[in-house]
């Protein structure tokens, strides 16, 4: 599918150049001139601060020292939190993919009109703030009016209880947050798949399930990787949901950073945490992209 697309767009830079007036490439430079400094300057400031001696509050002060980093290497609470954040984000990404993949497939089989309604609905939920969603989940999981009352009514629980704070409340809320992203990322690729491909597999003896896994899933390999990556990154930076719905064991690195920076006033330590965590995240993303991009493009 997109192997053909790739061939079609092989000369895209050439074609884009032809669209511009002579010397027009310069026109394309100015947005880069704006974007690059706005990304680079704060990052450089962050790096600089992480190299200051512990305890300095302002940026650019405190000399140069690797103490923050060496300290982190032996900080069990921090390393534990990094590990937990990575596992949590991976779990959220996989869970949301497992939910969204069949769901998106189901949407693409609907009438055009129904598809639009679903997509607009999903886009709308994106506009809700993470904070409000988290508090909604807290209410939903509360003892007095929450979900446990439904379980009691169904005779699955003897009496209402509070279903948060715990790990599952955090996971559920984060999955809820990333579902719209996942569906919107999977939808374009999924809707372009010729339904006759799955039918052809069935006429050759594949059950509908087998056809789905041997044809649809491999064709969706790249959107699947993109979707996992996106959910992973959204979940790994989560702050409000673990704070409100989790116990201290379930606090992500973002919470530790904010505590170091705001509560303890140790900006160099907080920035060192950020940079170390950034490196860990980049490593995981790199591995995922390498695995996902291998083999023939589909």
């Amino acid at each position: 599918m997109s192997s053909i697309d790739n061939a079609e767009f092989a000369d895209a830079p050439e074609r884009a150049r032809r669209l511009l007036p002579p010397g027009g490439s310069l026109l394309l430079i100015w947005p880069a001139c704006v974007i690059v400094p706005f990304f680079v300057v704060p990052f450089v400031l962050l790096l600089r601060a992480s190299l200051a001696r512990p305890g300095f509050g302002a940026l650019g002060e405190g000399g140069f020292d690797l103490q923050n980093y060496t300290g982190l290497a032996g900080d069990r609470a921090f390393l534990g939190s990094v590990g937990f954040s990575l596992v949590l984000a991976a779990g959220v990404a996989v869970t949301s993919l497992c939910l969204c993949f069949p769901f998106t497939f189901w949407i693409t089989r609907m009438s055009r009109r129904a598809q639009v309604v679903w997509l607009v609905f999903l886009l709308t939920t994106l506009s809700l703030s993470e904070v409000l969603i988290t508090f909604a989940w807290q209410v939903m999981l509360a003892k007095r009016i929450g979900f446990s009352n439904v379980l009691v009514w169904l005779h699955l629980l003897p009496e209402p209880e509070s279903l948060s704070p715990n790990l599952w409340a955090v996971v559920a809320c984060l999955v809820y947050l990333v579902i719209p992203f996942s569906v919107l990322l999977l939808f374009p690729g999924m809707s372009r798949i010729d339904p006759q491909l799955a039918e052809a597999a069935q006429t050759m003896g594949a059950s509908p399930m087998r056809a789905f896994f041997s044809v649809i899933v491999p064709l969706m390999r790249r959107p699947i990787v993109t979707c996992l990556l996106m959910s992973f990154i959204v979940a790994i930076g989560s702050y409000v949901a673990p704070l409100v719905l989790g116990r201290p064991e379930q606090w992500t690195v973002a919470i530790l950073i904010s505590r170091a920076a705001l509560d303890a006033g140790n900006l160099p330590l907080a920035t060192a945490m950020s940079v170390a965590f950034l490196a860990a995240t980049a490593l995981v993303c790199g591995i995922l992209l390498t695995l996902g991009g291998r083999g023939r493009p589909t």
Partner: protein
Amino acid sequence: MPGLEVQGVAKTFGKTPVVDHVSFQVAHGDFVCFLGPSGCGKTTLLRLIAGLEIPSAGRIVLDDIDITARAPCERSFGMVFQSLALFPHLNVEDNVGYSLRLRDGNRRARRERVEELLELVRLPGMAKRAVSQLSGGQRQRVAIARALAQEPRILLMDEPFSALDAKLREEMQVEIRQLQQKLKITTILVTHDQREAMTLADTVLVIAHGRIEQMGAPLDIYRNPANKFVATFIGSSNLIEVEVTGADRVRFGDHTIEVASIPAAALPGAAATLSVRPENILVNRLASGHSGGLSGTITFIRDFGSTIEARIDCGGREIITVSPSAQWDGMQASDRVGLQFAADACRVLPP
């Protein structure tokens, strides 16, 4: 009866009947074409046979076993789709070997079988190519090889040649017919191209509005169309409103035309339609002082070299004729000519 039996099969989408209680039989080894204009339900009928649609009514029986409720994967019918539906993520070998891989894990046997199939469709040594590297005709062959891999009981093809250019299409038509005769595989092909149906099929089903208009050998259908639709859809035909006047004659205006036979239902005095093919009309120069017989004025001539097509105005009705060039007596547009219909080629159809 062994073979495929379709018994009163119907399919409605919403309230629209797409296939309207169709019944027919296909003997083993036959090549059958479903021929009809687009939207006539021929593809839906094929999909019903493949199991990709569930009939609203009726039964599908294969070798005396009712397979109406069977899933497509349990029917073992090979299918070539209009879009070909080759798997873009698999190479030629894995596309062709897809059905084999579902069955058993013997890799070497599978590879040999794939190579054998590729020989059969004249694509030897292409196993490792990506599907995107193939030309239209090559993709076509891969799709056919893939459909044949599971040794299907019936091969189903949905307008398989529609994406090819005219020359390649004709080549592929000959090739598929040779392949079918060699393998003696029961084949059903859907097409809207009457030439394709005429040259490929043992039996043609002419379909319109979800119903079978006529079923028979291609030449039989051509010579004896059952109704006006078939007469004009298969080849071209002059349709003339006439009145039945006797056991072997009809009247057109003031003229009496002799025909070989008239259906028993058409009594003298009844209105009918006379169908006569353009090549069954003899055109000759009108001698001066000629009277009687059907005559007209040539309005337009197209010279194809080997044949000449003329449009002739006979008292306000246009009649199209096709004559071999050798028999054309140099007549020009606006010449008066006489027309003779070959009696045994005239068909009297319901009005």
